[in-house]
């Protein structure tokens, strides 16, 4: 068996805001090609942790490497090696699908030919031939999110970070979105994802649950359910998050 490459590694990673410890000494590893679910209640510290991992927030302590780069010193290299999308910000609404692809392709340093080929592949794959020249603002949310995800992995990053990518999306599109996630992971891209849909936690290879800034559980969904004597990830989550002391 080949040992899998570790693409995210944190060691006691910490972030303080004054007296408040938003992220408290979290240590974990994520393997290449893994779908890693990063769960936690509102205010548990997920967003803060993710910001440190994508190189836009400097940790107060501890160590972390993302795609082999140090989160203190090599944030620019990190940004080149990852993709990112969230529910809140994904694409430029007043540009068309094609223009968004060109813009992000350009930012990630792809050549014109690469952009052309990838643009065509992406549009064919999502079956958006007739929408390619329409403004993003005119697309239904679910389509937008599928395009946003495809653009986030356009430059074939090592890791893609997804912050609640499926919020408010209809149930069929939500599943089509996960088909894209599965496919990306299958092609070797590591997926780091947060969600409030507990059925989606089941689709992850491994899941971590944050409570009050610390990671209190980390394992595969099946092992977590067995460990906590729960039938579903929702039960596991509720058991753990109910113990939160932080007044949000």
């Amino acid at each position: 068996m080949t040992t899998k490459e570790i693409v995210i590694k944190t060691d006691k990673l910490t972030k303080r805001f004054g007296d408040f410890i938003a992220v408290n000494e979290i240590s974990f590893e994520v393997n290449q090609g893994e779908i890693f679910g990063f769960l936690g209640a509102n205010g548990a510290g997920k967003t803060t942790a993710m910001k440190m991992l994508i190189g836009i927030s400097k940790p107060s302590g501890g160590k972390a490497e993302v795609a082999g780069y140090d989160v203190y010193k090599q944030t620019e290299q990190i940004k080149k090696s990852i993709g990112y999308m969230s529910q809140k910000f994904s694409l430029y609404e007043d540009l068309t699908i094609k223009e968004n692809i060109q813009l992000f392709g350009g930012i990630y340093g792809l050549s014109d030919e690469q952009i052309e080929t990838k643009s065509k592949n992406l549009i064919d794959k999502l079956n958006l031939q007739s929408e390619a020249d329409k403004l993003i603002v005119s697309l239904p949310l679910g389509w937008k999110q599928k395009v946003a995800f495809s653009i986030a992995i356009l430059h074939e990053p090592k890791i893609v970070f997804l912050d609640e990518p499926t919020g408010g999306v209809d149930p069929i599109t939500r599943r089509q979105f996960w088909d894209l996630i599965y496919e990306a992971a299958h092609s070797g891209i590591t997926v780091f994802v947060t969600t409030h849909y507990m059925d989606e936690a089941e689709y992850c290879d491994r899941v971590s649950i944050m409570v009050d800034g610390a990671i209190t559980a980390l394992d595969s969904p099946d092992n977590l359910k067995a460990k906590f004597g729960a039938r579903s990830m929702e039960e596991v989550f509720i058991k753990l998050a109910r113990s939160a002391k932080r007044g949000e």
Partner: protein
Amino acid sequence: MKAVELKNIVKTYSTKKSVVTAVDNVSFSVDEGELFGLIGPDGSGKTSIFRILTTLLLPDSGSAAVLGHDVTQDWKEIRNIVGYMPGRFSLYQDLTVEENLEFFATVFNTTIQENYDLVADIYKQLEPFKTRRAGKLSGGMKQKLALSCALIHKPQMLFLDEPTTGVDPVSRKEFWEMLKRLKAQGISILVSTPYMDEANLCDRIALMQSGKILEIDKPQNIVDRFGKNLYAVRSDNMYKLLNDLRSFPKTESCFAFGDYHHLLLKENGSKAGELESYLISKGHTNLIVAEINPGIEDCFMQLMKK
């Protein structure tokens, strides 16, 4: 009298280039004391319906009434007797928790003390933070404060537009427990949500998609009408399983559903045996195939395809 009654409501929005029909000839009613849910994804028209009912938006056509008051004629009366929690956090960010509540009480000519019993349950959890500015609260806390402010004038009817969106499962569960207690006090509630699992907590629901109602009924009745055999399937390799199930010739549709995949076959009748041998031939191990009862989400997905 109905708590809410909509008849053939149409609402369109025009931009320079196009016309979007946000609400497409929608009719439904909510009984007094009922907890009624509008269930659907973003863009299904839920918020426009809330804005019309709370007299903040005029419909293009159709009529609507809240507790017998017409939404276009009697807007003053309606505003006095309803509480509204919009989807976007709309309290004063730079006022404290307590100041916000006091402000809303004063606007409605009442005091926090007068109606404290109604909000006590919710507000108690906020009291340790009552001097904190609303803008500095986290999601779950903002939501509790917004509900307190919507309740402080003792409304007869409560409109809650996606109160649990983006809220974690624990806070969502607590929120629905609060709604149950409010319902027990006789308040009629119209609530919207994109989370299908919350549908079962409502007395009746309307499933919505693209401005239209797909179905209105008690959750159980909707589930009972599903009328097809549904199978839950799992094995050691869920990704391969999904693809294999989709290429099984008798499959109508197959979607991931948490730790199982849900499978609909083209014809009803027991095909489980045939399916199992097909999957075993594809090399699946630890295979489980079980016929199950559908949930609201299965029904919604089935209705979406029609």
